[in-house]
């Protein structure tokens, strides 16, 4: 690895020589996407299609006293109406209530009634004819409110789980978890300098461009077929089977093309409603959310309250670290605080640490995953505290991080011991980068930060069939959000020694491929790529066996390299993969390979930012002048897509840092539920995001892959907070750091 001469968007590469891995081919689905031919869920059409709409709660917290749909049912063109009563009695009640509420509405936008009609306008009119009587209760909108004594209670049946034990106490705190390593009171006693602060963040949305949608057709033979925009067709299948009390084999889910998800398209919302409406009508029913519904009724990532205390010796050795984090779960338990505790201090080798995490229900939509869920909230606090520490110690913030950086063998504060990781390499690449080495432009401030995400493995399957023209059909079950068809195909092409253009990848439905977990947790290239690697090995082995039959020689003497099968003992024996493919039918039939995997060698990823900003002293408006993202990706299978992930995560982080928030009024209604007022950055609000791909190969993957999709959203909020502090002297401890917030803040 060399860090000497940087260019924009460069790769600090591993040495291994690959033919296909590491190249930048054109994506297989590119032509369909740029010509508008790709089929998205809202494009779906079928003979006799009905259109569904959903009546939603106008109240953030209310008892549902009664629901009267009789007038709506009589409207001409209305074909069916469903409520929570149409669910089978079995199954998780909270899961069902989040699809169609039964006794209580727990957030504005929660679905109450579904209507199917001959067209969307009739369905819309029918909603106006439904009478729901509510008994309005006091809403609870933040962790602070929810944890207060005498707080209004969301669930009478929710009791706090304290360090794994049910306390029996009814409250809005679903659980309290804790990780202890060493002894922090000893650690803080040893510290010469201590930094302690509280930080707050607001609810934010993933902001995917395509709203949720689903079409369902329940056939008379009892089989249910669903087409939808999802990150995990098998998750949809299994959830539907549970909620509708049917065997998984009776449900078939076809994932349509997806216009973004970032974690928000893992849960189901519309699918069961469309299914119930289809069961009643016998017709296919399509439901598409509006943007407002997408904001109000899908799963954002939580607002949070975070307290951080870090102590260090004069030489920069961190002696103790403490984190207290409360995160909004939304209406039902399950905030990402469980992931946040695994990330908050994991970049550092700290002898003494304690981390407390609280999962708290509030009257907002049930949170869903969003790119490294929980980790950006945690980093907003921890990585500002580290910078403050550096300032107090008079140390360079990168040097302080390097002094304490976790490496192979370090035990994380939450338990696991790191394998080979690239935190140190990322920090070194940041330090040596011309951006960090350059002088700041006049009037600008500079901030840095680093973030961690652990990544996941889980199940994936892949089938590969050889065509007689020497190409292969590759089928897999991972929804392609960021170019994964091509990255997965590249795994197979590398093994078979054929051009990736000769691989035809397809994402198929749940009846057509083995179980494959979600496109999420940065697992797809890692795990489904691995399945493709194994399936290609299967094909390769069969090719060698077939050549052995054709040549009548021992297969052990044959090899397949660069798409050519040859003999180690007889140089005359040579055949290309293509030549073999032509002869398959006559020599025993076609070849297909398959693999199902659940790999364990997951490698975590670290991403760091260097950010330069200027802040208008009169208006408080921040301009991001220069932004560099450095990430350890293991091995970049397709560097352009990796850069895309790094830039995308950076942009989402910048939006989160500067302007994005669910702006709630006192009644718990989001008042900015449009893309006009939910201010995600546009291209005019961003500089070119420079990327540096650092490759510290993950020994747990055949090509060294680490997941790359998430770590990059972790550092931007603290990097920008640190830069704003450098520019203005104002320590921004709450997100978003909007112009008004900066203008009214006091300098330290």
């Amino acid at each position, binding site marked *: 690895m060399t860090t000497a001469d940087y260019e924009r968007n460069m790769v600090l590469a591993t040495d291994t020589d690959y033919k296909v891995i590491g190249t930048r081919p054109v994506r297989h689905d590119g032509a369909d996407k740029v010509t508008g031919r790709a089929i998205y869920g809202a494009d779906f059409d079928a003979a006799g299609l009905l259109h569904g709409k959903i009546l939603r709660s106008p109240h953030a917290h209310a008892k549902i006293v009664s629901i009267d749909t009789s007038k709506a049912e009589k409207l001409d063109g209305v074909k069916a109406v469903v409520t929570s009563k149409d669910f089978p009695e079995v199954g998780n009640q909270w899961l069902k209530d989040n699809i169609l509420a039964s006794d209580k509405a727990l957030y504005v936008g929660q679905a109450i009634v579904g209507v199917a009609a001959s*067209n969307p306008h009739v369905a819309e*009119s029918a909603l106006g004819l439904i009478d729901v009587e509510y008994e309005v209760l006091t809403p609870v909108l933040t962790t602070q409110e929810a944890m207060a004594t005498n707080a209004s209670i969301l669930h009478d049946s929710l009791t706090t789980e304290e360090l794994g034990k049910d306390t029996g106490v009814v409250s809005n705190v679903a659980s309290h978890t804790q990780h202890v390593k060493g002894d922090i009171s000893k650690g803080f006693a040893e510290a010469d300098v201590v930094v302690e602060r509280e930080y707050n963040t607001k609810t934010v949305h993933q902001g995917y461009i395509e709203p949720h949608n689903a079409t369902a057709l329940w056939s008379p033979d009892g089989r249910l077929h669903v087409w939808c925009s999802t990150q995990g067709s098998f998750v949809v299948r299994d959830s539907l089977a549970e909620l509708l009390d049917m065997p998984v084999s009776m449900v078939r889910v076809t994932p349509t093309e997806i216009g973004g998800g970032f974690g928000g398209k893992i849960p189901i919302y519309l699918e069961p409603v469309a299914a119930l409406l289809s069961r009643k009508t016998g017709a296919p029913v399509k439901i598409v959310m509006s943007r407002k519904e997408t904001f109000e009724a899908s799963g954002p990532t939580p607002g949070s309250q975070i307290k951080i205390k870090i102590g260090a010796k004069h030489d920069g050795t961190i002696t103790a670290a403490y984190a207290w984090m409360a995160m909004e779960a939304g209406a039902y338990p399950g905030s990402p605080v469980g992931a946040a505790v695994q990330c908050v201090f994991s970049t550092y080798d700290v002898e003494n640490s304690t981390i407390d995490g609280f999962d708290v229900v509030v009257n907002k939509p049930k949170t869903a995953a969003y790119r490294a869920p929980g980790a950006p909230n945690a980093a907003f606090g921890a990585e500002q505290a580290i910078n403050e520490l550096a300032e107090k110690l008079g140390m360079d913030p990168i040097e302080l991080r390097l002094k304490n950086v976790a490496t192979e063998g370090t035990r994380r504060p939450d338990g696991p011991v790191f394998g080979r990781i690239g935190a140190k390499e990322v920090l070194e690449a940041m330090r040596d980068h011309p951006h960090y080495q350059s002088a700041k432009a006049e009037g600008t401030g500079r901030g840095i930060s680093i973030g961690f995400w652990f990544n996941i493995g889980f199940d994936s399957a892949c089938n590969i069939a050889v065509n007689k023209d020497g190409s292969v059909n590759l089928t897999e079950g991972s929804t392609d959000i960021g170019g994964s068809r091509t990255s997965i195909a590249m795994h197979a092409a590398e093994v078979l020694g054929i051009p990736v253009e000769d691989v035809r990848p397809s994402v198929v439905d749940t009846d057509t491929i083995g179980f494959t977990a979600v496109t999420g947790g940065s697992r797809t290239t890692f795990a489904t790529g691995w399945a493709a690697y194994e399936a290609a090995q299967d094909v390769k082995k069969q090719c060698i066996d077939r050549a052995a039959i054709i040549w009548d020689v021992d297969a052990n003497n044959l090899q397949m390299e660069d798409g050519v099968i040859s003999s180690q003992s007889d140089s005359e024996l040579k055949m290309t993969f293509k030549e073999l493919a032509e002869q398959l039918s006559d020599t025993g039939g076609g070849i297909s390979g398959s693999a199902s995997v659940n790999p364990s060698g997951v490698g975590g990823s670290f991403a760091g930012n260097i950010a330069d900003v200027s802040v208008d002293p009169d*208006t408080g408006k921040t301009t991001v002048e220069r932004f560099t993202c450095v990430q350890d990706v293991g091995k970049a299978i397709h560097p352009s897509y990796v850069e895309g992930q790094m830039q995308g995560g950076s942009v989402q982080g910048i939006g989160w840092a*500067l302007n994005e928030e669910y702006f709630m009024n006192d009644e718990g209604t989001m*008042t900015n539920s449009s893309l*006009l*007022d939910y201010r995600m950055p546009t291209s005019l*609000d961003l500089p070119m995001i420079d990327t540096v791909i650092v490759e510290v190969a993950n020994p747990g993957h055949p090509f060294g892959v680490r997941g790359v999709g998430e770590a990059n959203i972790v550092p931007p909020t603290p990097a920008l907070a640190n830069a704003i502090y450098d520019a203005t002297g104002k320590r921004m401890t709450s997100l978003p750091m909007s*112009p*008004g917030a900066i203008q009214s803040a006091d300098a330290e």
Partner: protein
Amino acid sequence: MKWIDFEKPNTVEDAVKLLSDSGGNARAMAGGTDLIVMLRVGHPRVNPDVVVDIKSIPELNELSYDANKGLTVGAAVECYKIYGDDNVNSHFSALNDSATLIGGTQIQGRASFGGNLCNAAPSGDSIPNMIAHRAVATITGPSGTREVPVEDICTGPGQTSIESDELLISINFPSNGAGFGANYIRFIPRNEMDIAVAGVGASVTIEDGKFTSARVSLASVAPTPLLVEEAGEALVGQPVSEGAIQKAADLAKAAAKPISDMRGTADYRKHLCDVLTRRALTTAVERAQGAS
């Protein structure tokens, strides 16, 4: 589902008849960049039985300049025509501050100042600029034609003094003498795709280093765009100076009556009135001095 008739008259007379025959349930449509959006979301105030497309009426597409009469901008003239017009560029170039600001290229191909005014959003980006330019609206109804200063058109959010059977025909901008300069600026947290948190239109006339006239008008800090007469009056007779400009900015800030909402707090908006008035007046002065 509701049926909406669509009409496209060719004369002012026919348009006014369509409006008055509908008993208050017709809506004129210029570019439709506000109207269609509101129809789609089912805006409670916008629920017409008839939409009257006014883009084929010659008077509403007039864009002409006469040194005596000034500039006439028909109510349906699109932003792109305004900033592409030679007369606008030589005599009223500050109008481009608004014409190039409203929406992006596609929106500017449809959106009109007339529609911006009749839509009467407190944040309408052309309105304070028109007010600063002392623009006068020409309105025709069943009982004839009347002329109304632009600052008297908006009466509340989405509400105007134009009756439901009346049509805005054009907006007239009086000619400016030497030493005139104007500017409109708004503050938004992003650099595009946003609604003014606050906006300021300012115009000045400078003779012999002294303000001889001045106007300041504010957006997004009251139920309607505001003309702050006292801010302009405070400048008249004063020599051009930072102190004089700051005095006007203080008065603009004092006149603002903003609310707190998701776009900004009342305090922040008042603060922005100070900042933006100072900046808009400073630019107007530079332009005035550059022009003389």
